[in-house]
């Protein structure tokens, strides 16, 4: 088992370092991951690679770690979206079915953003991953890291929403 895990230490440890940005936290996280892997080795069915199995544990523990730190992008970094239009408009629960809302958001993001912006946006707003973690995980080397991608995504989305609205208005008329 030790040999099995040893090969994967660098991946898991590297991931934890990038996720937390802190050696002690990364160690705590990595220790939890391998303790869990040891405990649940029997559940590894061999249907996927060991690295995929370890990644699933790693991903899940990283999310638990986030919850335990209670970092919420809506409060910490919610100002990123403040100047988008339609702030007063009805939310998805009031106007659109959840599925339709989801399709619309996916469509707008897909249409308006580049690949990196999509990943940053999905991780930050979908999974609540902090921007500094996203910067390290995706290896973003620009000066402002993921924040710059959120800002450009916001700008592009603003345009896309405006376009979408004008098309709808034409259609309704």
């Amino acid at each position, binding site marked *: 088992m*030790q040999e099995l*895990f040893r090969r994967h*230490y*660098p*991946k898991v*440890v*590297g991931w*934890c*370092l*990038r996720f937390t940005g802190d*050696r*002690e936290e*990364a*160690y*705590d996280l990595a*220790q*939890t991951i*391998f*303790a869990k892997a*040891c405990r649940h080795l029997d559940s590894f069915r061999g249907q996927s*690679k060991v*690295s*995929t199995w370890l*990644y*699933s544990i790693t*991903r899940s523990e990283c999310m638990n770690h986030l919850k335990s730190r209670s970092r919420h*992008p*809506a409060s910490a970094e*919610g100002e990123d*979206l403040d100047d*988008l239009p*339609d*702030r*007063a*408009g*009805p*939310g*998805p629960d009031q*106007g*659109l079915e959840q*599925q339709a*809302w*989801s399709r*619309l*958001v*996916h469509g707008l*993001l*897909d249409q308006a953003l580049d690949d990196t912006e*999509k*990943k940053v946006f*999905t*991780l930050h*707003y*979908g999974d609540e991953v902090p921007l500094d973690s996203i910067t390290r*995980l*995706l290896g973003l080397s620009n000066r402002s890291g993921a924040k710059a991608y959120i800002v450009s995504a916001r700008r592009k*989305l603003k345009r896309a*929403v405006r376009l979408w*609205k004008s098309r709808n208005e034409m259609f*309704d008329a």
Partner: protein
Amino acid sequence: MADVDLTDVDGLRTALAPSASCLSLEQLSRLCDRDHAGSADARAAEHVAGCLRCRTELALLRQFESLALRPEEEEDASWIVGRLTRDVARLTAGEVLPPRRRAPARAAGWRRFVAPRAVAGGLAAAAAALLVILNVPGRDASPTLPPDATAGPSSFRSDAIAVKGPAGDVDAAPKEMSWEPAPGAASYSVQVMEVDRTPVWSGESRELKIALPAAVRARVVPGKPFLWQVMAKDAAGQAIAASEMQRFRLRMRAPHPRE
């Protein structure tokens, strides 16, 4: 038709949450590995092509699978891997790791349970814990190479096996690796690696040292760092303890005189 409010963070989260048709990590992994000849895989690939969430998950999975440590991560990673090796050895032996205590203060983490061997044996637990906390560098203390083991202190701090050397910057290619005994050890396994963990050489010893072959020494050129680690095994060949990952390199220039 309803308006779009992208300032609604909860709404965004709902929209970006995985749907019932999103793929599992196992399915995504298969997509990474295979051509999509099978109909199930073709359907999966089609879903991924249109799903932002799955595409992001796939990108992250690929990132993980191909992860190579960056130079600036190596020191911290070595520090963690040394401890993980010990932890997994304990878990394999059926031990239960002490509970981790997360506290706001940086020095009050799990490492309070990790006491240097020399201290753990001789002092009361409270005093040992205090010493450990005081000796552990703070968050901003960047890890540095320890001094030359052959000329410096007789051993380096290690939680399971204390290593004598080589470690840090050395003046000559090391002739041997040496370490302190681990309780219950019948033999020791040593591995020398490149900094990306590519194995360079490994050997077994029943003593507390092992000679480094000339062919390996010849690869130790000035400025090139190497990693090495020693693992203790019991009579049945099971690993029971390990040192931290050690790093050494041959100095680029003549050393300054010691103060």
